[in-house]
């Protein structure tokens, strides 16, 4: 009797669909459409809607009785393009060249030149790094520095610069060690799995708990960065809004059951031996000195402390290393559904399976002990007809160009996320990405050449438009934006002429308030470069250290590098003003900027002011600006004018 009952229940269960029709109807899970490009009758409209992007944008505007803003002037456009693609201001000569270029393709040429430059990768890598919460240290108590983690940053920059197809970019990060166990580039890419925070401590390591934390990090990021779904919500229970069961979450995790840390040292055995001997010698010395600390007091003790610190700082840099992962099949973690996500409350064991809502009901799991599981995960993610991957990526590209996405919740394409403002445009762009071999630069180019992108940030229809679309989702003008933290620092360096353009390599720890270093658990971790010109490298090359963020970056909304950030905040508050008025970076560079101005134009106050505006704001000062600035220079040092320039809205914002 009992057996019959069980069988009947199982049969009933089999008839019950895994996912309801309403769940499967989520817009972002539907196959991409092949939308027809809208056509227009009026001449004014057809001339604006030259490209498909513009046609889609214009139709939405027209449906809402709005119209686009006029085209921005060239001075505005070149500054917009430079910051957008390079994160740097255009030089006065660049501006003059562009403004004076009478060729009809001047704008196209400028776009192509900027996209072809390595600075493009330096700027756009930051967007990706934010999304995968890139950091080079493990956080928690030791905040251990991961030797060679910077190579992942360079990998992203170089991949963007070479316009590596996005499907390949994804595959290498998800499964680079499986695809090319000997290939440095793909091994570095798989460093993706090392980017989450890792708890380590002395004594009881709570191994099972820690392993669960690591697997959680690695699973959640695949949801946020690649799928644009809040998969992490299903760790403790079935997703509250989206068709992701708790079981789906652990099935996704099961693709990484065998994934373990792997640090590949790129040095001969002899080199490694010599390095270890050197480290041991210094560590022994430190240990000996430490013993003496207790016997001393006051000044003597302080001196010894300093000596120990110096020794710690002088420990040799790690040998060249690739921070990546490998599969350790013998020790792979059996993946269970965990009650409330608690590692000690194991329920049934599960095998790998991609999100069930995108599979026919009843699709079996893969064999949990199959080799190279992550390749199959990557294959699934990068299938040309995957409904999410391409949409999520083109939406990010759109978002970083326009300041808001077609879907304005770039990491949440679920029921609770934002609905696309231009669903057909989103599909059109995603189709173009896939059809173009997943190359991103053609998508950038298409967007940048559109009339939508070239609009002024002022609109004659502002009155009606603000009422209908206060957030400018329909793009009735270009949205002004404040520069991001890295852009502000880089622009200050560029404007003052101090920028060190060197690309790539080990990350830099710039001088920072001593007290902040003392707030590290191991202050000796902070090692300033011997070559001071390194302090003026672009911000993307500064170390991403979880337990010490630069106050300058923090105050201008740099994300905390602990969870995926697809869209930065842009806040306005007094500590930003304090940083730009009293901070060491602003004041140091104001001095340098003043020196540059003096060198370039001499002593004439009006010329100094004009040059300063041209360098920093990309335009000449208005009379209402020139007058007070010249007056100011009669009594105040040029350095103070230079500092004021760093505080201008037209320096800190892009129109």
């Amino acid at each position, binding site marked *: 009797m009992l057996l019959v009952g069980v069988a009947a229940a199982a049969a009933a269960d089999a008839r019950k669909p895994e996912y309801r029709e309403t769940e499967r109807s989520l817009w972002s899970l539907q196959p991409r459409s092949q939308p027809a490009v809208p056509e227009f009758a009026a001449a004014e409209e057809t001339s604006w809607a030259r490209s498909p992007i513009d046609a889609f944008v214009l139709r939405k505007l027209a449906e809402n009785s709005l119209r686009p803003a006029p085209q921005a*002037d060239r*001075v*505005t456009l070149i500054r917009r393009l430079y910051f957008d693609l390079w994160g740097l201001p255009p030089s*006065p000569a660049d*501006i*003059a060249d562009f*403004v004076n270029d009478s060729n009809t393709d001047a704008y196209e040429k400028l776009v192509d030149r900027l996209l072809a430059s390595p600075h493009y990768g330096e700027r756009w890598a930051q967007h990706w790094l934010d999304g995968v919460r890139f950091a080079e240290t493990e*956080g*928690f*108590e030791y905040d251990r520095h991961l030797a060679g983690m910077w190579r992942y940053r360079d990998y992203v920059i170089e991949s963007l610069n070479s316009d590596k197809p996005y499907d390949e970019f994804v595959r290498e990060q998800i499964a680079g060690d499986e695809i090319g166990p000997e290939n440095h580039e793909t091994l570095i890419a798989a460093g993706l799995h090392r980017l989450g*925070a890792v708890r380590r*401590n002395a004594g*009881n390591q709570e191994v099972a708990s820690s392993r669960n934390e690591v697997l959680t990090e690695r699973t959640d990021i695949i949801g946020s960065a690649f799928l644009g779904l809040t998969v992490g*919500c299903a760790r403790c229970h079935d997703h509250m809004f989206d068709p992701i069961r708790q079981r789906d979450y652990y099935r996704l995790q099961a693709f990484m059951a065998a994934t373990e840390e792997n640090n590949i040292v790129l040095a001969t055995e002899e080199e490694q031996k010599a390095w270890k001997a050197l480290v041991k010698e210094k560590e022994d010395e430190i240990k000996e000195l430490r013993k003496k600390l207790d016997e001393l007091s006051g000044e003597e003790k302080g001196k010894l402390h300093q000596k120990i610190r110096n020794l710690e700082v002088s420990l040799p840099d790690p040998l060249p290393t690739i921070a990546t992962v490998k599969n350790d099949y013998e020790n792979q973690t059996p993946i269970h559904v965990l009650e409330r996500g608690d590692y000690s409350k194991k329920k049934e064991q599960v095998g790998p399976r991609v999100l069930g809502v995108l599979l026919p009901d009843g699709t079996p799991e893969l064999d949990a002990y199959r080799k190279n599981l992550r390749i199959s995960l990557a294959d699934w993610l990068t299938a040309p007809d995957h409904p999410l991957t391409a949409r999520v990526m083109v939406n990010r590209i759109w978002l970083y160009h326009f300041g808001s996405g077609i879907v304005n*919740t770039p*990491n949440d394409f*679920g029921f*609770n*996320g934002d609905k696309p403002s231009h669903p057909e445009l989103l599909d059109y762009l995603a189709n173009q990405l896939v059809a173009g071999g997943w190359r991103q630069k053609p998508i950038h180019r298409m967007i940048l050449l559109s009339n939508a992108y070239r609009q002024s940030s*002022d609109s*004659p229809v*502002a*009155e009606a438009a*603000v009422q209908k679309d*206060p957030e400018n989702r329909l793009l009735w003008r270009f949205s002004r934006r404040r520069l991001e933290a890295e852009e502000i620092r880089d622009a200050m360096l560029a404007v003052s002429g101090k920028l060190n353009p060197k690309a790539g390599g080990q990350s830099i720890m710039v001088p920072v*308030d001593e*007290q902040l270093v*003392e*707030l590290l658990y191991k202050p000796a971790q902070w090692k300033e470069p011997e070559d001071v010109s390194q302090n003026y490298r672009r911000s993307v090359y500064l170390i991403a250290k*979880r*337990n*010490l963020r630069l*106050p300058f970056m923090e105050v*201008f*909304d740099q994300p*905390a590098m*602990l*969870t995926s950030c697809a869209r930065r*905040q842009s*806040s*306005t508050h*007094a*500590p930003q*003003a*304090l940083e730009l*008025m*009293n901070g*060491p970076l602003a004041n140091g560079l104001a001095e340098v900027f003043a020196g540059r101005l003096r060198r370039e134009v001499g002593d004439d106050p009006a010329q100094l002011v004009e040059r300063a505006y*041209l360098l920093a704001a990309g*335009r000449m000062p208005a009379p*209402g*600006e020139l007058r*007070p*600035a010249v007056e100011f220079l009669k009594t*105040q040092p040029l350095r*103070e004018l230079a500092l*004021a320039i760093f505080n*201008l*809205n*037209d320096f800190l914002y892009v129109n």
Partner: protein
Amino acid sequence: MLEHVRFTRNRREFLRDAFCGFGSLAMADILQRESLRAASTANALAPKPPHMPAKAKSVIFLFMAGGPSHVETWDPKPLLNELDGEPRPKEFGEAKYQFVKPDAKLLGTKRTFQKYGKAGIEVSDLFPHMAKCVDDLAILRSCHGDMVVHSAAQYELWTGRIVPGFPSMGSWVCYGLGSESESLPAFVVMPDPDGALEAGQPMYGNGFLPAVFQPTMFRPGDRPVLNLDLPQGVSLEERRKTIDLIRQLNEATLNPGDDEFNARLKAYDLAFKMQTEAPEVLDIRNEPQETLDLYGVGKEPTHDYGRRCLLARRLVEKGVRFVCVVSGGGPGNLQWDAHDDIEENHLRMAAQTDQPVAALLQDLKRRGMLDSTLVLWGGEFGRSPEAQGGKGRDHHNLGFTMWLAGGGIQGGQVVGATDAIGLRAVENPIHFRDLHTTMLHQLGLDQDKLNYLHLGRNERLTQIHGRVVREIV
């Protein structure tokens, strides 16, 4: 050169042109509407009404970092002394520690306890000053958390999660209530000059909340706020002129209805105000000698913690929302992290902090501020009933003591209890989330309404619902 590069027209001018004659009326209307819309975002730190009637306006967290022993301080365990040197009797159950092994021996305490206050609450001889304030304290003897290592436990204490990346309670409170002070930061952490804690900066941070809710970390010494000082060689008068120029230049192209740029102008005014007014608040030299003596300022070993507690009072007095005064930093033994020798460590740490803490409570009370200031004392966990290495105690998260005072808390009572050896909270257990919920409740904040959408979830301070500790509110 480049004369044809015309400066960007300001928006007012642009609109005037665009709307030709009938512009002024329509424009005035837009400008007004735009400012209404942006008003909600421009000043995120403007004071906000609480969700429900509040008893407390501010919080001072006296963070005893490293984990003070409950059995040496607020939770006397005579049986522990009787069982000194014995293994833990089986009936008390299991516990996981960081270092101590299951076969470790119980360690009695050398501390003695006496009854104080109207309710006759037992307090250890480590805290003769605090003992006199016991009628104001609600002593929570049944606190517990989930993690037994510093970093993760500190994250849980501060953010409700055992991993970094979530906003701290200070950031959440400022997000919920804004700031009452324009010239001071809303959320201040005063670390111990001896050094950092294991969980590092992310423990105090704003996580995914906007940067405006980040903590201001005070540095040791007389000028604690970063960037509040002018660079060397620049006078305030000179800098005032620079700020005036910044305003003039930014106003030259300003559309009066541009809220974001107006907020930026205001930020400069505030920054200047902070620069001129904050140093006075931060300067304790004008406090009467009697007050300095009360806090133990100017004598060792209380000077530093006393100075910081006094600063905490001065900050709260000026409307700062959340202040944390950390005791302990750097290597474990400079925290309450008494692995080697509980006596040496706790006598030293208590001597540094007991008088200043008691002084803070008395000072708040005599100024009529205690009613509106919630004071929290405690660490990320307690210490093991077992000995570590003979004289020390290991970390211990299953049962330990914290206390609350002021801010509407009913003092003079003990809540909850651990078992007879202080191993486990057995009566009325109070998890960190319950502590957080109680704190929010006193501030008039509801744990559900205080939320922020992040990666698809409405995140709150309490991941799992906490409960208000009803006995004390």
